[in-house]
């Protein structure tokens, strides 16, 4: 192994030597610089690997040949090697990225960079306080130097503020160090550990000065205006160095100083760190400059890790994994994002839509966003998971909540930004040009996200259990995205089919039902994909990612696996949803609600794991503490996915604006994930009480109200897909209600409805999707009379709405029948009545849907519309066959579900004699109902046909129009505001109150952000004042006075 001194020697020596080279030789200088950086990276990475695999033990370097404390010593331990690797790799790739810019600026730029990296190296390794000070000064001066690589008035003023701030901070650090020396007689960290820190106040104040100076270097809120200005002014490549290399090194300094810090310091660190995380993310909401936004995010992430360091007592042996994975995520993501920002060079995040010129960049952008937010399979996922678990385990609920809320805020602006990039109109401008020296670092860091994710999976305590194969299968489609749709579609269907076949022997009970919905349903909806031409770039990886997540939910045995799958599903579905033309906002709100829900689930799981030795899902059943709270958290989390009232506002837009075959995927399949979650929750936790009030009782009301309002709002929609989306909300309300009944019949109904909802909603969305496909509009009043043009679609819609409305003899009635029995059994009449009221309201939108589209007046421009494409019809007719089988033979669906439920709910099961079902209260024979109805229908039809045999079929305007004639189909088709009187009567119930509420929440948080961020007035003196005030305030808090 190479002595760590060579890090210093090589970087510094080359820096000195480069001075000899003049401008003409700057090419040589560049190559030498890169080589030196590579050498430094090699040293640090080889140390890191050696230490990791235990081939190497930590090394201490004594300068000047004397032992510390008399001389300065450098330590190369595991942590040091890790941080050195980060810093040096950042240096290497950062330099490579900036290569052309640096080349223009001359040799000095390389010198400054080398010295910056050298300074950071020593900061990490040194064990001497004063030496730390010296090299901190070196790196801050060098930073001030590279800031002006982009010489501009803004850069200069930012650099000046930066210099002033770090100067003051350095002075305070120096004061602290010298007094520390005075009180302890040493400057060496290894030596001072023995010092009794509590000895007298002087030393604590001295320590305080040291620590607060180091903390201020981390740019804590609110004393960080100077740092943010720097981030905004510098180009992305330099911002990357500051955000990754410098920040990592400073972070390590904090970590290094911990042993000498008084205990109160940990709380201070936590407060400052998580406070910074929270406020940075809050203030970033209003930020529109990409670099400054990244700066906020950067400061926030570092704050989070600082907070984690402060909380290290509570994290046990997971601390390392948590901090490292969070840091790695920040490091990779921020590097990548800053680099992309450097390539795009835009001043407003809305202008980032130019990124679409380069799909690879867009891919990387979203990759880094997901990495930063801790989505699986990336490292921060495990970090955040373990963090929350440990925080819950040690009762740090406040910090737990704060971290989750702040993470959600982070999600808001990052996903908004991603949405802008994917959806906004790109501003005109020069085409993007990306050099090879820019691709290499980006590519390597992009790959590193997966590599680190893989290692994090294996390092985390239960991560190795996770089945990554489906996800890998999905991600593999990124590699073959250049293939045409039909190949990819076939592959996808084959893959899912095989996976179902592979899982099939092990499936039973709920798993069976839901895997069937997820996989078989997925295959059915994918069939429609054959209707697409071209490549559909990005569709298959993300769709399969969603399905991988869904099936992962079913396969999950542990909470971690479940949460992993949940997040994978969320990520995949986000991309599916945002594919729609106008889906930008809807995808954002979908993502935000999903994130919020996911964090609630995470919190719930973490609470459930308190005091339990394992994380299998069954711990929910045995959670010793806070069971009701766990239940509520998880239930709300799952209800964001089932779009219960209050949490539903994301759904209509997201489902309505999605593509033809995506709508059925997200509506009929994805929503079931929430149902599945609720099932595994309720089945394990049973009935929980808040005081004397059963939570299930509350859920039943929520379900009922959701059903009514969802259906009511559906009835007032003008947009066909939106109507169906609201209808989904309503149906999910029934399911929630059924689950809340917590009885055999209730669950039977819920699951039967879940299955039938999958069938009819897929049917309807595909059918309506086919119509929209042909008509290129979703407004129902623009349609009409299409029965003659699209008869097959009409038939599937007709069957679909009859099933939806639960009208006998089709299978939808089963749900209604069981429901009523369950309601009477449970005696929850009012909710039950609301549910059946909702069922009746469903007629309104069902009729409206079929009437305004297929009946009434055919519009001129649709006179030659063709039937929907075959591949959109094909899955519909497969579903139709299934529906008819379930209708004629209801026990083929209900009996297995009933058997499945018996272990959980032995009482109140239906008794089956063939197709004849008996409940406690009533009976029903679906087959005979079908026979009778069909027989009567045929008889009546024959009678009418006989009587009416010579009828003339007339055309669309041959109607009695009060002795006039119709003028235009548009003015004759009664469709717009169809239920006007109904709206007049009870339309107030469908007022978008919830939307308004969330709108106010959003506006309010933005207003607060706007208010608070005014403290960054741009005036350097104000920033200094903030630093001083920050120091004083922290002093007052930590010492409780002077």
């Amino acid at each position, binding site marked *: 192994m190479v002595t760590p001194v060579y890090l210093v020697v090589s970087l510094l020596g080359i820096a000195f030597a480069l001075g000899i080279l003049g401008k003409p030789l700057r090419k040589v200088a560049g190559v030498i610089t890169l080589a030196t950086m590579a050498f430094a990276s090699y040293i640090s990475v080889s140390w890191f690997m050696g230490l990791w695999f235990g081939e190497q033990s930590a090394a201490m370097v004594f300068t000047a040949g004397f032992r510390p404390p008399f001389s300065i010593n450098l330590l190369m331990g595991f942590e040091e090697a890790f941080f050195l690797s980060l810093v040096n790799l950042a240096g290497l790739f950062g330099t490579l990225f900036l290569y052309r810019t640096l080349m223009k600026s001359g040799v000095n730029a390389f010198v400054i960079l080398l010295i910056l990296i050298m300074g950071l190296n020593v900061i990490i390794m040194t064990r001497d306080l004063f030496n730390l000070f010296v090299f901190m000064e070196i790196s801050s001066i060098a930073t001030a130097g590279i800031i002006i690589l982009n010489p501009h008035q803004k850069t200069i003023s930012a650099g000046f503020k930066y210099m002033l701030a770090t100067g003051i901070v350095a002075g305070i650090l120096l004061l602290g160090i010298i007094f520390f020396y005075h009180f302890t007689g040493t400057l060496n960290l290894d030596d001072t550990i023995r010092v009794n820190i509590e000895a007298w106040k002087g030393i604590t104040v001295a320590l305080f000065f040291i620590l607060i100076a180091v903390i201020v270097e981390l740019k804590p809120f609110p004393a960080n205006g100077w740092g943010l200005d720097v981030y905004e002014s510098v180009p992305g490549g330099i911002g990357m160095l500051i955000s990754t290399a410098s920040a990592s090194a400073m972070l390590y300094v904090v970590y290094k100083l911990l042993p000498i810090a008084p205990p109160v310091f940990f709380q201070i660190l936590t407060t400052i760190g998580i406070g910074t995380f929270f406020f940075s993310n809050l203030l970033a909401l209003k930020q529109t400059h990409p670099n400054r936004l990244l700066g906020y995010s950067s400061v926030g992430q570092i704050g989070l890790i600082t907070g984690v360091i402060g909380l290290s007592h509570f994290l046990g042996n997971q601390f390392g994994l948590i901090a490292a994975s969070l840091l790695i995520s920040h490091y990779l993501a921020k590097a990548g994002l800053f680099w992309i920002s450097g390539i795009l060079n835009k001043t407003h995040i809305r202008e980032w839509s130019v990124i679409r010129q380069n799909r690879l960049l867009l891919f990387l952008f979203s990759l880094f966003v997901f990495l930063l937010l801790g989505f699986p399979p990336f490292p921060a996922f495990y970090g955040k998971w373990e963090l929350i678990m440990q925080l819950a385990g040690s009762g740090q609920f406040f910090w737990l909540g704060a971290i989750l809320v702040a993470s959600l805020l982070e999600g808001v602006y990052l996903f908004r930004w991603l949405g802008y990039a994917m959806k906004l109109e790109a501003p005109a401008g020069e085409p993007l040009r990306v050099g090879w020296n820019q691709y290499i670092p980006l590519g390597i860091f992009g790959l590193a996200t997966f590599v680190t994710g893989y290692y994090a999976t294996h390092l985390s305590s239960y991560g190795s259990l996770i089945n990554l194969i489906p996800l890998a299968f999905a991600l593999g489609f990124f590699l073959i995205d250049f293939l045409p749709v039909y190949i990819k579609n076939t592959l996808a269907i084959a893959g899912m089919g095989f996976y179902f076949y592979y899982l099939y022997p092990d499936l039973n009970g709920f798993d069976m039902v839901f895997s069937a919905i997820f996989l078989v349903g997925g295959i059915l909806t994918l069939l429609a994909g054959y209707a697409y031409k071209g490549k559909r770039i990005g569709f298959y990886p993300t769709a399969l990612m969603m399905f991988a997540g869904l099936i992962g939910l079913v396969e999950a045995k542990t909470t971690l696996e479940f949460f992993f799958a949940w997040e994978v599903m969320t990520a995949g579905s986000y991309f599916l949803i945002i594919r729609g033309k106008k889906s930008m906002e809807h995808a954002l709100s979908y993502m935000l609600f999903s994130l919020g829900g996911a964090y609630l689930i995470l919190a719930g799981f973490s609470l459930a794991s308190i005091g339990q030795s394992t994380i299998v899902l069954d711990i929910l059943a045995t959670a010793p503490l806070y069971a009701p709270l766990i239940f509520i958290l998880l239930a709300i989390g799952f209800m964001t996915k089932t779009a219960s009232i209050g949490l539903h506002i994301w759904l209509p837009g997201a489902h309505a604006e999605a593509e033809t075959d995506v709508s059925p995927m997200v509506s009929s399949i994805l929503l079931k994930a929430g149902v599945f979650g609720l099932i595994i929750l309720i089945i394990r936790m049973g009935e929980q009480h808040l005081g004397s009030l059963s939570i299930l009782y509350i859920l039943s009301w929520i379900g009922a109200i959701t059903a009514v309002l969802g259906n009511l709002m559906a009835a007032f929609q003008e947009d066909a897909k939106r109507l169906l989306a609201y209808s989904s909300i309503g149906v999910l309300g029934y399911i929630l209600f059924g689950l809340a009944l917590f009885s055999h019949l209730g669950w039977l109904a819920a699951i039967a409805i879940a299955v039938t909802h999958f069938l009819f909603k897929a049917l309807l969305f595909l059918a309506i999707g086919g119509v929209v496909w*042909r008509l290129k509009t979703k407004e129902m009043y623009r349609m009409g009379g299409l029965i003659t043009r699209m008869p097959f679609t009409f038939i599937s819609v007709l069957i679909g709405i009859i099933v939806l409305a639960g009208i006998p003899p089709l299978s939808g009635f089963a749900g209604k029948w069981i429901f009523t029995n369950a309601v009477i059994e449970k005696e929850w009449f009012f909710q039950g009545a609301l549910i059946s009221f909702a069922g009746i309201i469903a007629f309104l939108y069902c009729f409206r849907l079929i009437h305004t589209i297929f009946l009434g007046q055919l519009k001129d421009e649709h006179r*030659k519309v063709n039937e929907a494409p075959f591949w959109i019809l094909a899955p519909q007719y497969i579903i139709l066959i299934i529906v008819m089988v379930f209708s004629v033979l209801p026990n083929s669906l209900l009996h297995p579900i009933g058997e499945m439920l018996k272990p959980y709910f032995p009482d109140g099961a239906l008794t089956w004699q063939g197709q004849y079902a008996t409940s406690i209260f009533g009976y029903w024979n679906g087959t005979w109902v079908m026979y009778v109805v069909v027989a009567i229908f045929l008889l009546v039809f024959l009678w009418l046909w006989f009587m009416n045999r010579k009828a003339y079929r*007339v*055309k669309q305007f041959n109607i009695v129009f009060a002795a006039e004639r119709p003028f235009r189909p548009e003015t004759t088709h009664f469709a717009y505001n169809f239920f006007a009187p109904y709206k007049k009567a009870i339309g107030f119930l469908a007022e978008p109150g919830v939307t308004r509420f969330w709108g106010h929440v959003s506006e309010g948080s933005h207003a607060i952000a706007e208010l608070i961020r005014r403290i960054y007035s741009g005036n350097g003196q104000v920033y200094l004042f903030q630093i001083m005030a920050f120091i004083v305030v922290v002093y007052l808090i930590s010492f409780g006075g002077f």
Partner: protein
Amino acid sequence: MSKEDLEKRTVYSPEGEPIEIDPLNDYFLDLRPESYAPRNGVIEQFANWARAESLWVLGFGTGCGAIEMRPLMTPRFDAYRFGIQWRPTPRQSSVFVISGYLSVKTLKRVIRSYEQMQNPKFVVALGSCTINGGMYWDSYNTINRLDHYLPVDVYITGCMPRPEALLAGFEELKKRIKAGKGDGANKYADNFDWYKANQKKIIKDWDMPDYNW
């Protein structure tokens, strides 16, 4: 409302292909009415009886005589006793009472409504104006002889005829129907061209298909 609605126009399908719209052909069934031969014997007699005993009158007051139709339903005259009921839509009505003079403007509506009734259908012409124009015989704006335009089953004279006269007229109509003579619809179909020509002579802005199904 305007005539442009019936002019040919080009619209574009969602795919952007032009579609030629010819409203009269595309929106309206273009068929001549058919004349139906009565059925044989008892069945037709029974049918005629039923038709006669269930007279559904189209509620369309065309002229001033309409004012005399309302009292028919009052307790004093109570036409319901005779199986006479009002029906608001021509599709379901079998009797059309032309209540008084027909202005040119109304004639168009009457023709349209008449044609929308199903065969067999009966016309009761009410008042002198329908016979020869009455006091408006030289008006620039009314027609004189209704049976130039529609086949009339029964005329009820008077200006205006009293409700009692109307009841008598209906009784007469019933008799005609029962006797199998209520075949105005067939007559209209058989002499369709003649009727149409007459109608078109009066109605200058003919903006409907030849037969309104």
